[in-house]
């Protein structure tokens, strides 16, 4: 029943995180992982990178709280949540969520729940660098109503 939470400028290795979830774990038949990455198009803009700001004192607490809520809803064993901050470029990893459970139903649901809640409640903010021809502008990303709706469907 371990929960690993990390907020860091450092990149993560998906293989290392999968190992954390599965090493010496013969209790769980299911592992689900999600990795979020920086893509080149967002909201109709060409993006070259993004900067992630956060509220350090609050992020770890909030991520731990989301994991606790997931444990209350589903039978989960190990959970890994990693979120990067600082300057990121196209193709970089942003976020990782991995969970293990005896069966796949709980693992799939919990991984999606954790991501959905993280999106609407964890204090991270993206400022993306947009490219328009040769010019570059940095713009804060607007929160999406669709993310609120996705999170709301769990309650």
């Amino acid at each position: 029943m371990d929960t690993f939470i990390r907020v860091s400028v450092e990149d993560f290795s998906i293989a290392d995180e999968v190992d954390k979830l599965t090493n010496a774990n013969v209790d769980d038949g299911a592992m689900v992982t999600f990795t979020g990455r920086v893509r080149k198009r967002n909201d109709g803009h060409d993006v070259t990178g993004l900067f992630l700001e956060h509220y350090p004192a609050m992020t770890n607490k909030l991520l731990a709280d989301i994991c606790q809520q997931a444990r209350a809803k589903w039978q989960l064993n190990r959970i890994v949540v990693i979120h990067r901050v600082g300057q990121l470029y196209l193709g970089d990893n942003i976020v990782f969520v991995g969970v293990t459970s005896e069966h796949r139903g709980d693992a799939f649901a919990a991984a999606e729940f954790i991501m959905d809640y993280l999106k609407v409640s964890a204090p991270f903010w993206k400022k993306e660098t947009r490219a328009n021809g040769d010019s570059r502008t940095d713009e804060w990303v607007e929160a999406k109503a669709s993310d609120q709706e996705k999170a709301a469907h769990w309650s």
Partner: protein
Amino acid sequence: MLTVLFFAQLRERLGTDKLIIETPAESWTVADLTKHLVGQYPEWQKSLLASNIITAVNQQVADKAQALKSGDEIAYFPPVTGG
């Protein structure tokens, strides 16, 4: 003493990330603090009173009626966009 923090586009608009209020009045709520800040910095009114601004007290999301006590850390921030 109260510590007041601002993040992301709100931090940029206000031009500061942190304020210390040495001698807050007794029995302030979050709303009272906001009123005090707007009184001190009238140019902050629009940004600070925007309906989408979220407030947290001691790293927990709090509503405007929450009472404050000395030593609290109050944060103001726009809707989050991580993940």
